[in-house]
């Protein structure tokens, strides 16, 4: 995850796909179907990636399906591959997702995603949208302030030092964050994710195959997805219902009753630091308005009760189409005990969260070390 001038899109996706297949000890011939996810084509300016990415991962002659749900697409792609297998139709499925933001202009692409009848002319991009979300949140809960968001940035940017795949790996202080350049109040430069090139891939197999391929697989223990209004002002951005519902579905399926206690690690989609405060509330890690106290208490630090974003999170790399799958991959690696320097000792249940499509879509996936 960084700027990859040395490869084109298909080559970059191939790299991730081969990495996942090598890890599983299989080749393309043992894959029964491929699910490909990418964000809007306008980011790269190249249409219909499903036409040509398949053969690049060795999936010529296989069933290929493309998934597309804004920023959540990476997670939706993993979930779709899970449905392929859980539905009993396919045995072994490859899920791949990518984004190569350096090929285009990220904020232009994001602004172009808005409805041309209502808000595209405002060139709102992502920082202004999340600025509105953050101010709505701050004004609702006077106990939370910009310093709490800065604490998220400090924590996640420090965690990124342990992640060789992170794009930004530099420690910052609360003061650095608060003093960084204003982007769209209350968002400042160091509250923001970078634009990245990157791809992610997972091999998802049915029970017996998974046990044969891997001594300690990560199991899909819970899955929840939900969507609401496509028009931003119609969503309660300070407490999006889609996230609350997606989490409830996943928790019910994975037997999670008290998320802070029952989960061992979480990877959440904080494209901007304020969002980790909001998601920690909608995911039920704390009560509404408790996000600031949660990060301040150290509960979400690497040595806390529930480490959040050991990878450094989205603040440390954001190849949009792949980002939500990276959360799943990181969560899965945690319960497989293979997260390297960012491993949370003894992690058995891990949550991956994603938001996308102008705060319209939410996906929550829970991985466990046993079914």
């Amino acid at each position, binding site marked *: 995850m960084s700027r990859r001038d040395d490869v084109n899109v298909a080559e970059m996706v191939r790299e991730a796909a081969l990495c996942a297949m090598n890890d599983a000890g299989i080749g393309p011939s043992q894959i029964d179907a491929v699910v490909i996810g990418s964000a809007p084509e306008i980011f790269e300016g190249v249409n219909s990636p499903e036409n040509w990415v398949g053969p690049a991962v060795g999936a010529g002659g296989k069933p290929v399906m493309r998934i597309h749900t804004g920023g959540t697409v990476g997670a939706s792609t993993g979930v779709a591959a899970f449905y392929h297998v859980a539905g009993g139709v396919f045995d072994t499925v490859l899920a791949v997702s990518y984004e190569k933001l350096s090929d285009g202009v990220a904020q232009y692409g994001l602004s172009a995603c808005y409805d041309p009848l209502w808000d595209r*002319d*405002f*060139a709102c991009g992502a920082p*202004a*949208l999340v600025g509105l979300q953050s101010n*709505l949140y701050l004004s609702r809960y006077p106990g939370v302030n910009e310093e709490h968001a800065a604490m998220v940035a400090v924590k996640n940017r420090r965690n990124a030092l342990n992640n060789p795949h992170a794009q930004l790996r530099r420690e910052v202080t609360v003061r650095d964050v608060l003093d960084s350049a204003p982007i769209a109040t209350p968002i400042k430069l160091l509250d923001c994710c970078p634009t990245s090139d990157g791809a992610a891939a997972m091999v998802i197999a049915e029970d017996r195959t998974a046990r044969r391929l891997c001594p300690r697989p990560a199991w899909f223990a819970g899955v929840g997805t939900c969507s609401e209004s496509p028009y*931003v*002002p119609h969503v309660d951005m300070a407490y999006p219902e889609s996230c609350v519902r997606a989490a409830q579905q996943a928790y019910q399926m994975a037997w999670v009753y008290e998320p802070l206690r029952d989960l061992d690690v979480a990877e959440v989609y904080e494209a901007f630091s304020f969002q980790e405060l909001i998601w920690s509330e909608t995911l039920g890690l704390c009560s509404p308005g408790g996000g600031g106290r949660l990060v301040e208490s150290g509960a979400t630090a690497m040595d806390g009760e529930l480490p959040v974003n050991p990878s450094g999170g989205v603040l440390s790399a954001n190849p949009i189409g792949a980002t939500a799958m990276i959360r799943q991959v990181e969560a899965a690696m945690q319960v497989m005990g293979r997260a390297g320097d960012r491993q949370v000792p003894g992690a058995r249940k891990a949550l991956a969260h994603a938001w996308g499509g102008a705060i319209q879509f939410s996906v929550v996936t829970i991985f466990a070390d046993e079914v």
Partner: protein
Amino acid sequence: MDLKEPRLVFLEANNSCPYRWSTGEIVGSFLTALRDHGKLLASKCPACYRVACPPASYCEECGAAATELVEVGPTGVVVSSAGVEEPWAGAPLDVPFCYVLIRLAGADTSLLHLAPNDGSVHPGSTVRPELRPERNGSITDIKWFVAAGEVERGGP
């Protein structure tokens, strides 16, 4: 020519293409009323009575067809804002501005629009639209929303 020597090449393009978006009848009525009369319309759901602005021919809350239009605003209350100090190339205005969510008087939903970034508008402020003299039937026929004077406070 050494075929083994790696070379990186970048192909450059700047695509643009004209589009012509159908608005549908409900949105078309909204844009016409804004252009010709400077009025703001909302759709009212016959089933759950939700008044939505921007309007739509369906109710996002309960799914019913919503074809009745009612007038809302022109004043509204700012629900949230995000200020921009230095507009970038391609920004909607070339002076400092705020993105704002506005709950128009009589509506149950908020509208995304712009406001001055001079301290006059913040969450809780009552604002009114500043219409452009030349209007072409788009949401940008409203330049932005400015603080409403004391006299106008409280809506129509």
